[in-house]
């Protein structure tokens, strides 16, 4: 090992720990503080489940995978080193599990799977009044079209779009989550948005 490597890693760990409060919390979890784990869970629970849900498009599976994500976080507490932002690490675990599930599910079923009509579909909240039946129908049709278009994307493109759009991650962070280069992320997003524009850009006028 090069002599400067340990110092570099040490400096990176210190820098991330200073900048990232979540990493600080995780370091406390490492020391046995379960309250800090609870804080991390409360803070990131919804975003992890929503990200995984949009990837796999099944609520029960999304929650099961999200449970596995947090279980892994908890179980790896003793070996945790804050070499990246906590959120990056968390979403790397989530992406890994969800993309593996998608790959296995694709092999198992050999076709696209959507839980259309499942009770997990949210009802749209139109400002402070209840939507009419017609509005609800239009919403459900739009939603189905969006979900189908996203589900048709290859797994990694799908993950990149969801991290970019809903988690508002910059390209560099997406690259770290998906363990690829920043230029690969640009390419993934370019292709994904091109496909999605072709399928969904007409929606605004309908």
């Amino acid at each position: 090992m090069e002599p400067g490597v340990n110092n570099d890693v040490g400096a990176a760990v210190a820098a991330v720990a200073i900048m990232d409060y979540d990493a600080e919390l995780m370091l406390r979890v490492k020391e046995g503080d379960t309250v800090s784990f609870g804080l991390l869970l409360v803070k990131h629970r919804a975003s992890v489940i929503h990200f995984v849900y949009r990837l796999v498009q099944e609520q029960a599976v999304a929650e099961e995978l999200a449970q596995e994500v947090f279980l892994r976080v908890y179980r790896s507490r003793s070996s945790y080193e804050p070499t990246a932002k906590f959120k990056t690490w968390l979403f790397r675990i989530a992406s890994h599990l969800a993309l593996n599930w998608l790959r296995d599910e694709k092999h198992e079923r050999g076709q696209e799977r959507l839980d259309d009509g499942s009770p997990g579909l949210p009802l749209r909240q139109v400002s402070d009044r209840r939507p009419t039946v017609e509005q609800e129908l239009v919403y459900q049709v739009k939603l189905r079209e969006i979900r189908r278009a996203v589900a048709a994307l290859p797994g990694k493109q799908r993950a990149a779009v969801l991290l970019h759009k809903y988690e508002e991650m910059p390209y560099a962070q997406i690259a770290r989550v998906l363990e690829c280069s920043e230029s690969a992320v640009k390419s993934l997003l370019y292709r994904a948005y091109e496909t999605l524009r072709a399928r969904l850009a007409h929606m605004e006028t309908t």
Partner: protein
Amino acid sequence: MNCPIQSRDSERLVAYAAGTLDTETARELEQHLAGCADCRSMAAEQTALWRALDVWEAPPVSPDFDERLYRRIDQGVRLSWRERLARAFDRMPLRQVLPLTASAGLLLVAGLLLQHPGSIATVAPRGEIVRANQVERTLDDLDLLRQFGTADSGESAHPNAK
């Protein structure tokens, strides 16, 4: 400003649609869009796509999510290695379990044989018996063929045979 499409820099159009460009860059891009139909069209489509994706709300999280997680954490702490192994196999599809079980079985047998070399000797005689039977049967077959061969040579139609 360079044309984002021609300079293969569509991220600027994506960022513009997402509203994440700084004011100065957004203003420059808008000036470019006024004179570039291709970029204008792409920016309009990307903006429409961005708004369409806003429609997709994820369902609310189950109220018992945390409770289930903490229960699993507690169970994980109490589970023995046998239970953890059983759980790991339980979650796997059958097509993954079978090869893994077969490999584990082979490794176990190999390990046992290496640990107790004497047991190889107890397995060997059965193999010997089988091999002895096979040799015996093969010799019988050869005898039979030889007899046929002798008979054949006696009845050969070849003119030089006699």
